[in-house]
């Protein structure tokens, strides 16, 4: 018997080049924790080269033993794998019976390779030598079987109790980059080992996947559910995903489903019953996010979006992004003021645009994936829930998303360990999150400030529209911006923005400008020989009352053009510009009014400035304000002391 839960996808025009297409029949054994699968891979050679080898990711082999590159890099914490030996939570992925469309058995040619670190124990990349090469722009079908032992509570994937989550789980073909694509000087395979940080870089394709699971299990997956077939005590769930770079699914007997819609997209929330109330937070948030991105970048083109909020014992899979399916993370007791569910669902959905549709290389250029996503996360959440309340708003403690990420970055002592251009596995000693996520968001916010939000939006939209369903590199991003600012702001940035990207992408320097001093000196009449050599005396002249000077200083190494503001005692102000190049810069004015205040970057657009406090200076002492702050602390202290004395 067949139940059709979803609308069978009509044949829609291809959005991508559909290089790698998979047809998979999967059997899940929930007792032995194993997957068995037969796969048909239909692969198109995207180049003028003749391809005689294929490379596959075998992600599950990262969990085969503790010698894998993944384990060595990450040092997976004990709390995650404490019972791995007792329960044999180790995993593997084993490919067999590999054949091409001429029925040549290529199994003997299978060979593990380690292109990144030569670690002989790492088996996460499999090379297949072809008996029948794939000719330029031709398509060939390959069939193979594979068996996987499912890991227990590994990062992002695995099982725990009767909760299963399959991410980075199937043998996935690498990306063949023709000469000229991204950084390829000649045709080459790009198929990195599975590193502890960064996963994505895959070709677009169609996925037809049938999962055979126990009949009481509910499946959530990438793509659209096109049918469920009951077979005895089991059910076969059929999902179909078009123009996506990966395929992820999960199943559990305990999922409950809530639904909503945004335009043509059916949004489904899969969670456990005790977290059902969170739907009131998830749906409005995701719809706001979808609308924001719809207006600012382009329409989400898929028919489904599945949000999975895993149970507490499935936390290891939370906060991740996969094509048309994302995971959040929450506890049922979260008060509304802790915005973690909103933050995660927004962040992971933005990834549908940056890495899923604009399919950048997360391992080689992490910032283009996580960084751009964090930038939009700040914009969307601050717009949705307030710039000072979008992350936490509990008991008077308030914090916005952008300000939280900025503070997190500047609080980290790893923030200068690597430039933004570093590959994911180069963050050996930390800094991945700080630099790839937060630093990028900060300099993108700064870029937005320099260009103006309208131009920034226009260029980001152009970037998205130009590169969706393709694989851009940083050069492509930079080219869009260089071209855009030369056209829109030719006087301000005649040479584009290379000077900016050079500093923020390839360096570890920081930015800090400040107001150093304000002086107001009473004017004196000129003295000495002024007009002629016969008369050495003061000259009566019409003078302004004060010669005032403000000195601005650059303490950081990064240079950015700065707006300067000086404010006079009557409240009027004057604005100046400084190219920000010199170490110091002064503004001198003759005036009848004293300067009472000076500001560097008065609009607060240079978000990557390390210290905003020294951007503002007044000649009036701020002791009144300090007294007020101290007064507040003092009353809290009084009550705290009295409270403790009440108890004992």
């Amino acid at each position, binding site marked *: 018997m067949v139940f059709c839960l979803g609308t069978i996808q009509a044949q829609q025009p291809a959005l991508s080049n559909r290089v790698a297409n998979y047809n998979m029949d999967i059997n899940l054994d929930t007792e032995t924790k194993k997957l068995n699968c037969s796969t048909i891979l239909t692969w198109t050679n995207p180049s003028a080269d003749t391809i005689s080898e294929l490379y596959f990711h075998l992600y599950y082999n990262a969990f085969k033993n503790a010698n894998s590159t993944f384990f060595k890099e990450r040092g997976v914490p004990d*709390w*995650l794998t*404490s019972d791995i030996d007792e329960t044999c939570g180790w995993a593997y992925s084993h490919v067999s019976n590999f054949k091409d469309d001429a029925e040549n058995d290529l199994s003997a040619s299978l060979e593990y390779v380690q292109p990144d670190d030569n670690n002989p124990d790492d088996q996460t990349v499999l090379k297949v030598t072809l008996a029948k090469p794939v000719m330029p722009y031709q398509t060939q079908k390959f069939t193979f079987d594979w068996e996987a032992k499912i890991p227990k*509570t590994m990062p992002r994937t695995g099982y*725990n*109790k009767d909760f299963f989550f399959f991410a980075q789980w199937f043998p996935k073909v690498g990306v063949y980059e023709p000469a000229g694509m991204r950084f390829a000087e000649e045709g080459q395979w790009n198929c990195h080992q599975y590193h502890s940080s960064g996963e994505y870089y895959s070709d677009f394709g169609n996925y037809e996947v049938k999962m055979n699971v126990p009949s009481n299990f509910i499946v959530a997956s990438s793509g659209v559910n096109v049918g469920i077939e009951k077979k005895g005590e089991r059910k076969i769930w059929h999902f179909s995903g078009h123009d996506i770079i990966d395929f992820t699914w999960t199943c559990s007997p305990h999922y409950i489903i809530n639904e909503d819609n945004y335009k043509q997209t059916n949004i489904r929330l899969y969670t*456990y019953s*005790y977290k059902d109330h969170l739907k009131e937070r998830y749906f409005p948030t995701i719809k706001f996010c979808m609308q924001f991105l719809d207006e600012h970048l382009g329409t989400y083109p898929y028919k489904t979006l599945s949000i999975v909020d895993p*149970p*507490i*014992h499935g936390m*290891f899979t939370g906060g991740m992004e996969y094509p048309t399916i994302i995971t959040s993370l929450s*506890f*049922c*007791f979260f008060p509304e003021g802790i915005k973690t569910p909103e933050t995660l669902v927004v962040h992971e959905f933005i990834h549908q645009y940056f890495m899923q549709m604009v399919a950048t290389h997360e391992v080689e250029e992490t910032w283009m994936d996580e960084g751009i996503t964090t930038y939009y996360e700040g914009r969307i959440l601050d717009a949705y829930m307030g710039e*000072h309340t979008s992350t936490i708003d509990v008991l008077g*403690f*308030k*914090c916005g998303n952008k*300000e939280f990420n*900025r*503070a997190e970055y*500047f*609080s980290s002592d790893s923030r200068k360990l690597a430039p933004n251009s570093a590959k994911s596995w180069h963050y050996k000693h930390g800094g991945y999150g700080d630099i790839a996520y937060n630093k990028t968001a900060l300099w993108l916010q700064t870029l937005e400030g320099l260009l103006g939000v309208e131009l920034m939006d226009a260029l980001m939209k152009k970037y998205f529209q130009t590169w969706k369903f393709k694989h851009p590199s940083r050069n492509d991003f930079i080219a869009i911006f260089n071209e855009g600012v030369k056209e829109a702001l030719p006087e301000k940035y005649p040479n584009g923005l290379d000077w900016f990207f050079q500093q923020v992408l390839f360096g570890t320097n920081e930015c800090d400008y400040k107001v150093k001093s304000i002086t107001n000196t009473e004017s004196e009449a000129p003295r000495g020989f002024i007009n002629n050599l016969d008369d050495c005396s003061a000259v009566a002249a019409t003078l302004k009352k004060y010669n005032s000077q403000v000195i601005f200083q650059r303490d950081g190494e990064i240079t950015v053009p700065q707006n300067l503001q000086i404010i006079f005692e009557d409240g009027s102000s004057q604005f100046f510009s400084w190219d920000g190049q010199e170490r110091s810069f002064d503004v001198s004015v003759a005036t009848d009014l004293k300067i009472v205040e000076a*500001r560097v970057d008065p609009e607060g657009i240079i978000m990557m400035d*390390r*210290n*905003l*406090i*020294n*951007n*503002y*200076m*007044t*000649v*009036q*002492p*701020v002791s*009144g*304000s*300090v007294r*007020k*702050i*101290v*007064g*507040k*602390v*003092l*009353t809290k*202290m*009084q*009550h*705290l*002391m*009295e409270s*403790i*004395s*009440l*108890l*004992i």
Partner: protein
Amino acid sequence: MSKVIESYKKGWQFLWNHKSVLCVIYIINLLLAYLSVGPLKNYLESAFGSSTLAKKLADKFDYTIIMDVINNYGVGVGVSLSSLFTFIFIYVFWSSFTGAGVMGLVKKRKQNPDDNFKLVQFFIEGAIYFFRFLRVSIYLLFTYAVVLFLMFKFFSKDGLSVFEFESEVFLINRFWILIILFIIIAFFGSIFRDIARSFIVIEDQPNILKSNIKALKSIVIVESIALSLINLIPLVIISALYYLLRNVLNEPFIVAFIISQIFLLFRIIYRIVRCASFLEFTD
């Protein structure tokens, strides 16, 4: 029950007749709090220098400014915090002293009702019973520590590995049960403390063990519970009113400050009345 009400009334009468004691306790509280925030004041002045952002922070909680202060001028944070904790510690001693002073004074006044009250008597009585009161506080503190430890053991009896849990619902239920349990224990703990202290003052023996045993027997007496509740009810009402007002009248600062001081005064009044009424009740 009439004894309970009579004791409570006498507690207020004591306060009314000894307002200077209230003033002293309030002034010491203010002084200690002022001294404790001294390093913070210096720290903030050095951090902000003459930055106008100080005004922004003074007006409302601003995460960015706070974090910029910590990240750029962070050395002083530790010093400021340790100073705050030091003064909390000192205040614990002071509160034992004030309890001793109040209860000792109640006893003295009952014995010699016609003598003129001099503030120095409060300090003398405080000095007499201080160390015995402090011992009661230490026992109580130790008891709370044991209770909290046992509660933690109960809370984590199924382990703390989230991967072992079916759901977090039972955790949060367990948490609330423990919170309620702790409030009940603290309620009876405070009855024990005040009755034990009363016996110490009344019997004036160097060994406090007998007083403590007597107090333990008295904590479940209905009258003791009623007296504690009668004392607590106005505090709960005033606290609720304060938190309501604080949200409404947050600005200007001076208004918020005055309301806060009035509330603090009431909390000190509660402590004095409670001490005096429990001694009247026990005597």
